[in-house]
């Protein structure tokens, strides 16, 4: 069953420029993907591609000046976008939770770790009192924090980066959600710690049959911790499919460029990348948004490409995907 179903999502921001004219930035331009129970989906792309914005929209956290002119977001079959705030609050932090990037700024510095975990349960009415404390300790143990009863008493500033990230994972899991969104969950952590944190997350996702969306710019994380991947460029998903398929037969020139920019491929194939800047979101070009950077672009690319199927659940938004893959 699909837990999260995002369909043709558009998000724009209206801003007044220095010349006092209103301008509109088209940040998301038709994002579609699904996350099912028991699967980890990776959302990759470069800075400004709209990854975190997609996560915020899915959590129902977008506020003015962000606008959603078009699109649908369904969580467990219900449309998040026309849900009243009170109802959203019953889902957010309970059924659908989020792990953010900077653990030390996301924990309340004035509350002990245990108290924060207890509060998460009390707010959502899942447990209170001794039961909540017991559960908090068990969850700390589940995210493999050594000596959990002592850590319950710890202040956030006493935790290392890896420990703090584990506490955030515990916060996200304590109310038994069905789905977790992790926005760059290990960026800034050392490699050995990153591997441990991701292992913990993956094991819990599979043990509890959760759906998970991992947002990252790190292809290594996608390659080893996700089953499916969606590649974003300029607010669009340009390719999606099973991880092994997409890495083995990328159909979109942007996906190909991303993979070719990894040090391992450079060592094999030499310097092949033509970098470039993403399109101006205030003034989006017609047709394929990757056109200006694409070595394969032709006049046909002035027409926006449809998603071309490249196999079971694998597709790329490029007119030439079939021959490129």
């Amino acid at each position, binding site marked *: 069953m699909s837990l999260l179903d995002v369909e043709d999502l558009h998000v724009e921001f209206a801003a007044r420029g220095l010349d006092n004219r209103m301008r509109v930035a088209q940040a998301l331009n038709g994002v579609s993907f699904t996350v099912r129970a028991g699967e980890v989906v990776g959302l990759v792309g*470069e800075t400004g591609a709209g990854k975190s914005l997609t996560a915020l929209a899915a959590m129902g956290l977008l506020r003015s000046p962000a606008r959603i002119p078009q699109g649908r977001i369904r969580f467990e079959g219900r449309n998040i976008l026309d849900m009243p705030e009170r109802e959203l609050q019953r889902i957010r932090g309970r059924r659908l939770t989020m792990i953010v990037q900077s653990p030390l700024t996301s924990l309340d510095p004035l509350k002990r770790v245990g108290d924060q975990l207890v509060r998460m349960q009390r707010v959502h009415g899942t447990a209170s009192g001794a039961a909540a404390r017991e559960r908090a300790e068990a969850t700390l143990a589940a995210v493999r924090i050594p000596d959990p009863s002592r850590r319950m008493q710890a202040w956030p500033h006493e935790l290392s980066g890896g420990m703090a990230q584990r506490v955030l994972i515990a916060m996200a899991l304590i109310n038994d959600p069905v789905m977790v969104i992790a926005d760059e969950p290990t960026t800034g952590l050392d490699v050995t710690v990153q591997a441990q944190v991701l292992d913990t997350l993956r094991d819990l996702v599979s043990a509890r049959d959760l759906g998970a969306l991992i947002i990252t710019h*790190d292809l290594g994380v996608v390659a080893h911790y996700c089953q499916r991947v969606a590649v974003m460029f300029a607010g669009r998903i340009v390719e999606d499919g099973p991880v092994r398929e997409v890495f083995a037969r990328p159909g979109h020139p942007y996906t190909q460029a991303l993979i070719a920019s990894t040090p391992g491929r450079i060592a094999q194939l030499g310097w092949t990348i033509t*970098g470039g800047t993403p399109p101006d979101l205030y003034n989006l070009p017609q047709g394929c948004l990757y056109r200006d950077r694409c070595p394969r672009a032709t006049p046909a690319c002035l027409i926006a490409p449809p998603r071309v199927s490249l196999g079971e659940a694998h597709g790329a938004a490029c007119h030439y995907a079939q021959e490129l893959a």
Partner: protein
Amino acid sequence: MSAPVLSVQRLVHRFSGAGGTTVKAVNDVSFDIAAGETLGLVGESGSGKSTIGLLATRLLRPTGGRILFEGVDITQLSPAALRPLRARLQIVFQDPWGSLSPRMTIGRLLEEPLTLHAKLTSVARAAEARRLADRVRLPAAALARYPHELSGGQLQRVSIARAIANRPKLIVLDEPTSSLDLSVRAGILQLLDELQRETGVAMLFISHDLETVRLVSHRVVVLYLGRIAEEGPTPRLFEAPAHPYTQVLLSANLPPDPSVPLARHEVFGEIPSPVNLPPGCFFAGRCPVALPACSTAPPEPLRVEDGHFAACIRVADGTNILAPAEETAR
């Protein structure tokens, strides 16, 4: 063989920490870098990588040890005595936003190092700035802009252009691509590679990113808590890591390729505090193959093969290799 461009000998650095404590950031580190060579310096947070970069460029004065630049002992030189050397001894930092004055145009930022170190007319200086911009592939229009108008990748090109302005012999690069996107990163690495081929500049490439270090370095030094765990030619160190810490570190790397299986060595225990370091090998408390002798005295670097050394007593009888880790399921 000609003298190394940079020679760091038994370098030690201490910071004073909170409450009268002493942070032992760098503990007896020695290495050389030859002309045309890139030495990769890898390690996790707190391993002393960045401190070594600052010491090598004498932006910090070491607590102990010697630093020779082009054969000249610069360990105790005063800032004034260092200034003429700085033209040839450059550093590029991770954060280009923080390292370029927001109030100067790119053109002036590029002219600044020339003003300091070269006697040029203003016309010649402007021409040289244009040449530098062109060399790092910045559009000519960028010269009139301010840093906030450029992307991170373009700003890092400005930092590199400033570093090469006076034909340096050594550039220390402290995480130069860590804040950049993948395709932008590749462009910067390619630029550095070209510059080295053209000018023979030596580079000290500091990074926590194992994949990038493997790509750009000729030799690699692995640091753990301010001490060298292992040093060797890049291909050998990555293919056959000898120090147990290097084996653990490399096994945690996530190559961006799903067809490469992961086999991770698990280690437990906390990293010792640099305020209170253990007497022997710093990794002994977490090492799967530690012996009682590991905790008594600091291990000497032992030869693994030519040019490849590991500071592990178990190298002596070849028992330093960890049991193969199980492949982790996806």
